[in-house]
């Protein structure tokens, strides 16, 4: 690991540290029992098996969205429709599970794949619009999220709704389709393995396959990719579709693993969480589980903190925002980055001269 990478890790850790400090500061300002709040935030998840289990459960959808967005951003296309893709994935999984009767094992697998397909459509639409009409992906992808939300609320209220249940929720998904729990005493479900597999597959895809290579080159320098013979239009589309599929699968897995009914009446925010995860993971799927764990831990800690003190969970959203700002700011600690890089370059030259 060269010193440039080491510095990057240091910068990231420092950014996280500063963000946490600022958040602690806010807690001190607004809470009557700040110390207790911070202790709960940082150590709450370790206090019981169930609580730690909460961390792992929360990590699962974050891994999917982190991997999905890493692939989409690798092509340098800012497609933010992952949020909608995840949501539609959950809806599609519910609908499919309720309306088909497949045997065990096949049922969840097929359902998850359908969810992935729907996710692909959500991110694919803005990508296709960019190709056919040259419209900006940023705005069209944001619109997709709202469209999916209202569409799925409609479907929930009018088609899937279980009148016998108290709240606005769908019928229960057949247990044959649900993903079982792995560890007793927690709600951690089989989706964990699928998520970790997705991270591994995402990594292999981006760094070991032809397509992944093409995507990365296109993302780094589109003109260069085109000049080299890469079909940048096709490759960009592939990256958006693939990423959207992973988002959709994430939604399906979350639904089948953590819920037994479709209950989402608002956007869950996993699309925005994905941004912070990919920022921390440097767009590399293999680091996504680590970043996802960190965020999940923070979230769970915040939830525990909010239940036993007067600080609300939203403090963590603020922390996330600060982390993004600091990590992405190139000039953050850039003076040191330059010093180290020029030291390395000089050393390299000296070595070569000596040959």
């Amino acid at each position: 690991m060269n010193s440039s990478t080491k510095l990057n890790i240091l910068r990231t850790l420092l950014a996280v540290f500063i963000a946490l400090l600022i958040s602690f500061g806010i807690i001190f300002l607004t809470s009557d029992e700040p110390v207790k709040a911070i202790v709960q935030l940082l150590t709450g998840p370790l206090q019981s098996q169930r609580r730690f289990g909460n961390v792992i459960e929360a990590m699962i959808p974050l891994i999917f969205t982190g991997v999905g967005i890493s692939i989409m951003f690798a092509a340098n296309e800012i497609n933010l429709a992952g949020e909608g893709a995840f949501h539609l994935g959950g809806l599609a999984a519910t609908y499919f599970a309720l309306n088909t009767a497949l045997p065990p094992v096949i049922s969840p697998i097929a359902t998850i794949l359908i969810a992935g397909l729907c996710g692909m459509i959500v991110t694919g639409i803005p990508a296709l619009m960019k190709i056919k009409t040259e419209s900006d992906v940023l705005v069209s992808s944001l619109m997709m999220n709202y469209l999916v939300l209202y569409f799925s609320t409609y479907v929930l209220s009018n088609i899937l709704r279980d009148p016998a249940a108290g709240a606005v929720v769908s019928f229960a998904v057949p247990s044959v389709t649900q993903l079982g729990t792995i560890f007793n005493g927690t709600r951690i479900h089989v989706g964990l393995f699928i998520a970790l597999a997705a991270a591994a597959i995402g990594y292999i895809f981006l760094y070991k396959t032809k397509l992944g290579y093409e995507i990365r080159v296109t993302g780094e320098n589109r003109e260069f990719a085109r000049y080299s013979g890469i079909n940048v239009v096709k490759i960009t589309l592939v990256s958006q579709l693939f990423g959207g599929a992973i988002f959709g699968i994430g939604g399906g897995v979350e639904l089948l693993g953590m819920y037994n009914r479709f209950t989402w009446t608002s956007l869950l925010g996993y699309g925005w969480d994905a941004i912070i995860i990919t920022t921390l993971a440097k767009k590399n799927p293999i680091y996504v589980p680590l970043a996802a764990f960190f965020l999940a831990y923070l979230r769970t800690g915040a939830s525990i903190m909010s239940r036993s003190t007067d600080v609300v969970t939203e403090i963590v959203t603020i922390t996330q925002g600060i982390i993004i700002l600091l990590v992405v700011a190139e000039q953050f600690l850039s003076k040191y980055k330059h010093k180290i890089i020029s030291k390395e370059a000089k050393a390299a030259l000296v070595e070569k001269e000596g040959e």
Partner: protein
Amino acid sequence: MIIEAVFSPEFLNATLRATTPILFAALASCIASKSGVINMALEGIMLFTALFGVIFSAAFQSAWLGLLATMAVGGFIGFFLAFFVLRLKTDEILAAIAINLIANGATILILLYVSGDRGISSSIPSLIIPRVTLPIIKDIPFLGQVLSNQNILTYVSLIMVAVVHIFLYRTPLGLKIRAVGENKDAAESVGISSDKIRYISLTLSGVLASMGGFFLSGGYMTKFTIGMSAGRGFIALAAGAMGGNTPIGSFLVSLLFGAAQALSNILQLGAWPHELVQMLPYVTTLIGLGIYSYSRMKKRQRLTGK
């Protein structure tokens, strides 16, 4: 029956109302984009300023003072964004996403801390900018009903279309902003500091957006509700882009989206399934964006002889 409703003066009146926040934000987007920076933090700025509008108007017991203070907050956020993008070289989209995230969390936190309310600012005695009826205009048949009896801020927003237009196209500062956006290197070679100009444009952008935010909780509605910006900041981005980033163009497009919003408000009361109706503003934006971009693409292709 719907057609009659659409062409009724009440509907057009409602359209103007709904257009106001989008228009403010769209103008904000124009100024920023003209200087070459995308301000995607409009959503967050509107949310922040909707909350602060309520807090300040209650604290000062004056809607106008509250508005001024809120505009300062909006300007500050714009400046903050500029700082991260220009000085710390943060990617403008990611910085904006960070600001939006912080806005989501902070508004809930601050609301709770300041008033103990969760979700809606019921216990804050905030004041709103009132609606007025214009004396002579209100008697004009049809148009009178549309134009009169609007919130003062609505009139302000319409005036701002002209103001921003004049600012961008008739003042030296506006020229510099456009120059930097058009060709940063060329502008710098004649001595314009592109960073300074962008700081200014982003700050102004924040101020304009904050007027829209203030209106949301201090005119359109009377209280602050969490998440009340509801994507308007993003719609405003589209409006700006589709309007060619010109004040007049964005105004026309904002009207379109305002109409969609007003339509969805009306239809929700009727027999149409209200979830689908709520999709209206977003679908309109999406399709409108597609049509606009497509025609621009075709024009470009024709001009370059493809």
